[in-house]
């Protein structure tokens, strides 16, 4: 049940990316090109998605517990730190360069489009590097905490 529901959520998400034009790098770059022929379409997508999510989350939290799992798993970190900012800067450069972010790249790669498949392969490498990086620094932080 949980797997089927999550599959439907992924399907809705992917359809949203295709319908909105977010799956199309040309359209994403037109949105990011504020100094050129700026295409504001994706600002509309973001605004609508955020509004629906905000309202829906509010309704979901009223019940106090999700339907198919033990509890809400919210991100715990509150820190505005260097990884957050640095990660976002790096992410934005790659996003601007290619017009792809993770969801749209997977949707495009699913159709077997070579540029998207290449991008997703490189993206997985980047993710692995970041995870190794993060687990190493958290191990370092833990051992520092232990010795302290």
């Amino acid at each position, binding site marked *: 049940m949980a797997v089927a529901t999550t599959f439907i959520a992924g399907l809705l998400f992917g359809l949203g990316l295709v319908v909105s034009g977010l799956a199309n790098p040309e359209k994403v770059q037109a949105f990011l090109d504020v100094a050129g022929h700026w295409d504001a379409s994706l600002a509309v997508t973001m605004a609508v998605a955020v509004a629906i999510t905000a309202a829906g989350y509010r309704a979901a939290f009223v019940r106090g517990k999700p339907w198919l799992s033990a509890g809400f798993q919210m991100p715990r970190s509150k820190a505005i730190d260097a990884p957050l900012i640095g990660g976002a800067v790096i992410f934005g450069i790659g996003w601007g360069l290619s017009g*792809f972010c993770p969801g749209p790249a997977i949707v495009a790669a699913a159709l077997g489009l070579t540029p998207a498949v290449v991008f997703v392969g490189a993206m997985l490498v980047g993710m692995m590097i970041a995870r190794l990086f993060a687990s190493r620094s958290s191990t370092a932080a833990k051992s520092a905490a232990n010795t302290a």
Partner: protein
Amino acid sequence: MMNFTPVSAALGGVLIGLSAVLMMATMGRIAGVSGFVSRLLPPYEDLDWPIRAAFVAGLIAAPWLYRWSGMHVEINQPASIMALVIAGVLVGFGAVYGSGCTSGHGVCGIARVSPRSIIATSVFMVSGMATVFVIRHVIGG
């Protein structure tokens, strides 16, 4: 060729929003694509692999369903393969290191008014716009 398409943009936003709400209401989770994808890779921290795989499978099925319903999926990627390799590594690294991407920070995080997500989204928007500016109007100018 590119033009403002507010109706399809809004409709896509509705679908993305519904997906995010469905994930929270049923599974109690943020619909963050980079989080789901990156945790399909080792090292494994929990037993939620099937859930993440199901979301990604939905993403993969989506363009096929759309195409099967008789619609055309418009995807034009003008970047060179070299640029895509570099961009892919940057996007993958940045999304994981910065704890989220356009979905997790940009949609879900802003919706729950998370200061981290609002800052991350502002930063990657500006960074993305600056990159396109350099490519199109400085180098390409």
